[in-house]
């Protein structure tokens, strides 16, 4: 038994869970898939006094289209996305991303919302949420609020979520018919944390690129948008040269960090390659 001691609650309803979170505040953590939280507890880097285990709350286990959005509940596991969760290019992109998340046993346990709540800099879903303009639905005992992806990430393992709140749902807008997605990452081993990744979404309208979004992950404290590259692409025909230039621009303007596995300059090179690959995928889809 490696973790510090903690109390484990397994409520059957969301209300009960939120009441526990309200009561225990900063002492409490939500346990969903546990694939990030439990290892950090084993190292005693995380030592919550209270775990609110939401796995018995059936109402949180959904991935559903509702109007113009895809709603992803707090218990939707990564594996749920391995086959398209929604028709069209969005489902295809999510499936492509899902296959790069760790290994199958972890994908059966870990959750989409858990990844966003944990906010690991190398999380595929975090970069994806940023690229796809996700909205986070936070529940607390006395209400709800929504946070846009661009306001969600606040550094390494840090988000806009407050004590007493739970990430109940992530909402992805369903993209326009002309929308295309692309994803590429580089990892030393299959399933590893990526050293760099790019998630791309854009519309191809009348032979030109519209509304491109490029999110970079794995390079620093949190996923970031490659805004200069996005601007470069706007209203341009997606020629190979343009894509190369956009990739180089993304690399030039990002701020990659150095760690054990990758010097910063190497990461910058990877950003260029990953953005290029993700863009090519998107425009050729």
């Amino acid at each position, binding site marked *: *038994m490696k973790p510090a001691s903690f109390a484990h609650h397994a409520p059957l309803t969301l209300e009960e869970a939120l009441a526990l979170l309200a009561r225990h505040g900063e002492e409490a953590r939500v346990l969903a898939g546990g694939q990030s939280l439990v290892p950090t507890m084993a*190292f005693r880097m995380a030592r919550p006094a209270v775990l609110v285990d939401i796995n018995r709350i059936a109402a949180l286990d959904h991935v559903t289209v509702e109007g113009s959005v895809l709603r992803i509940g707090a218990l939707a596991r990564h594996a749920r996305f391995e086959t398209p969760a929604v028709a069209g290019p969005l489902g295809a992109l999510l499936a492509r991303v899902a296959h790069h998340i760790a290994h199958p046993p972890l994908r059966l346990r870990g959750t989409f919302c858990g990844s966003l709540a944990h906010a690991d800099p190398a999380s595929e879903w975090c970069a994806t949420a940023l690229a796809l303009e996700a909205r986070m639905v936070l529940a607390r005992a006395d209400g709800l609020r929504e946070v846009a992806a661009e306001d969600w990430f606040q550094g390494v393992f840090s988000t806009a979520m407050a004590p007493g709140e739970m990430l109940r749902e992530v909402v992805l807008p369903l993209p326009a018919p002309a929308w295309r997605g692309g994803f590429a990452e580089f990892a*030393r*081993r299959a399933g590893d944390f990526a050293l760099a990744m790019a998630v791309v979404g854009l519309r191809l309208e009348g032979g030109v690129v519209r509304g491109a979004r490029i999110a970079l992950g794995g390079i620093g404290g949190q996923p970031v948008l490659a805004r200069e590259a996005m601007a470069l692409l706007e209203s341009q025909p997606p020629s190979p040269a343009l894509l190369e230039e956009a990739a180089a621009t993304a690399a030039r303007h990002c701020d990659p960090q150095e760690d*054990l596995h990758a010097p910063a300059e*190497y990461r910058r090179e990877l950003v260029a*390659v990953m953005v290029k690959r993700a863009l090519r995928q998107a425009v050729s889809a």
Partner: protein
Amino acid sequence: MNWVGRRLPRSEDPPLLRGEGRYVPDIAIGARVVRFLRSPVASGRITALRPPAEMPPGCLFVTGADLAEVQPIKPGLRRFNYRAVEQPVLPIERVHFVGQAIAAIVAPGAALAEDLLEACELDIAAEDPVIGFDAALAPDAALVHPIAPGNVAVEGELRPEAFAETLASAAHMVEFAFRSGRQSAMPLEGRGGVAEYDRATGRIRLSASAQMPHQLRTGIAQLLGMPEADLQVIAPDVGGGFGQKMALFPEYPVLVWLARKHRGRFAWVEDRNENLIASAHSRDQRHVLRAGFDAEGRLLALEADILADVGAFSVFPTTCAVEPLMALAEYPGPYKVPAYAVRTRGVLTHTCPMAPYRGVSRPVITFGIERVMDRAAAALGLAPDEIRRRNLHDVFPARSATGMVLDEASYIQALDEAVHILDIPAFRARQAAARAQGRYLGLGLSVFNERTGYGTPAFAARSMDVVPGYEVVDIAMLPSGEVEARIGSSPHGQGLRTTLSQIIADRLGLDPGHIRIIHGDTDRTPYGWGSFASRSLVIGGGACQVAADKLADKLRRGAARLLQCEPSDVTLRDGNAVAGAASMPIAELARLAHQRSELLSDAIGFNLAETGQYDPGGTFSNACHAAIVEVEAETGHVRVERYLVVEDAGRIINPMIADGQVQGGVAQGIANALFEEVIYAPDGTPLTGTLADYTPPTCAEIPEIEIHHLETISDATITGAKGLGEGGSIGAPAAIANAISDALSPFGVDVAEFPATPPRIRALVRGRAPRA
């Protein structure tokens, strides 16, 4: 029926596959839990060490002061300027590496033990540690141990007369300086032990995840000053060792001390972090080679300057000389090297100690000489296979530059076979076509020999205080006709129960299912050396053959008496003793020998027991490895597209098990070449303490490994078998590095450091344009 040579399924596997094996953690259930407080700093003086303020009932805190009567671990070596560094079981004054055990906490349960561990009070006045070769060898370097001036713990040098002139006379010189990253053997199961006091006998039983149970017993009894006869050591199911589990680690004497002092049952099972930072490391080496070739590509002279970082202490029983001296002795490998000069040094640093790991230096020296061959070939315009062909020994027995006898082998044949299978012209065409598209394929060869099955004389030449080598097997047939063979070897995944039963079955005319191999228990097996150095099938197997032959003689004498013929007329086969038309079941003979001894005792005495001993001089297996890789120039990623092994280990007892050995070794070799590295921060903090940071490959990164066997039967061993436990890991780093270097040849760069990680490959090609 011949059992040797058959792909007999491993008798070990069914319980393991059902999850019914018995490992140390299974035995630990219910024991008091021991956790070790480990040093967070690399070098310093302990200024305060106190137990948690509150110690609940049943909890203990043990420090070096409690172990005042316990001797330090002090392996010996009588030559090579060896400095006998001592390692206290638990230090009182100073710490020498991050992860060094300082104190033990005992608690009734694991959770409480972890809590108490956090609550211990430890203050260390940290000092600047000595990390890395440059720091250790600097003229003004602090000394890791005052006994070792210059931080050199062991030093060997060979320099024949007129060497410099020979080297200078060479038509072509290749200089190659390279670096081998530090590795962990990383057995699937980490270390662990359970020590239990037996109130009825006063004895201690230590179950430990170990490769050398008899050595552990002798070593611990010496350290503790206890009667060796009162200590039983058991190696139960052991989840891999690869050399790491040969060492007498300090944690084990602490467990035995606890069990004796407190008359109880104490268990320690390390976690992965402990295994990665505090067990043992290896392969941290830096070499400079100078090789002189004549105009036709024949090697005239080889000079090697070898540094091996041995960490902070010298492990028992192999000593910290194991890597430096292996490299010194075996650098020339399978090649004719007329003049060989070498200097080798084991360098002390404030890091985890070095212990043997599958291959012991040979992955590094093979990398060195095989890269030199490719560099020379490129410079002289020769094909890589051709320069090797010109230099490989082809007349046997040959004598190596360091005086070792190279027995009959197939160095050139293995190379030719690999070249034939690869179809190199077709590959070159594919490589050229790929390059035209900006894709970089490469092919690399690695030819080497592997000294295996070496007995006492080879180890005695190293002048260790503890000289391993021989093996003894006690064999006995029970009244039922079943056979028990008690062996001193100690398998931990090698499938020896299966292969040794195949050898014995053939000698006794029995089905292997009637043979039990008993191992890993000092109460039930003859004194022996355990399993390491690719020795057990050769030496333990040889001793089994000797013992079984003696038993077969006895059975023939007994059968001759009952069948009224001469012993030489009797054949043992298919469970029967047969003499012409007459025959009797061996099981019936066994029953009569024990229960109607009046019929037989004047011919065979009162038992069907024999002892076999075997102590061979050693034999060299050999192989040619070949890798085809694709290097992605823009990311530095390497994909191993194909991996081929042509292996010659003499007579193959069980081809399935032999293939498994090769596959596992190659996987570890590829890990060595591309993935795994133990990294220390400049302050001596290990940065690779989890499997997210120390990155062993998974099945997704390791390709299918294609294996072909040659069977050169030399007379160096009585079974005709040569060892092959280490070859896979020896050959792979060189093959992969040569393949990457071939792939990157348009960039004019090659590999001189492994693991060749993607950032390192990018650093090679960055800013360079490929030439057409």
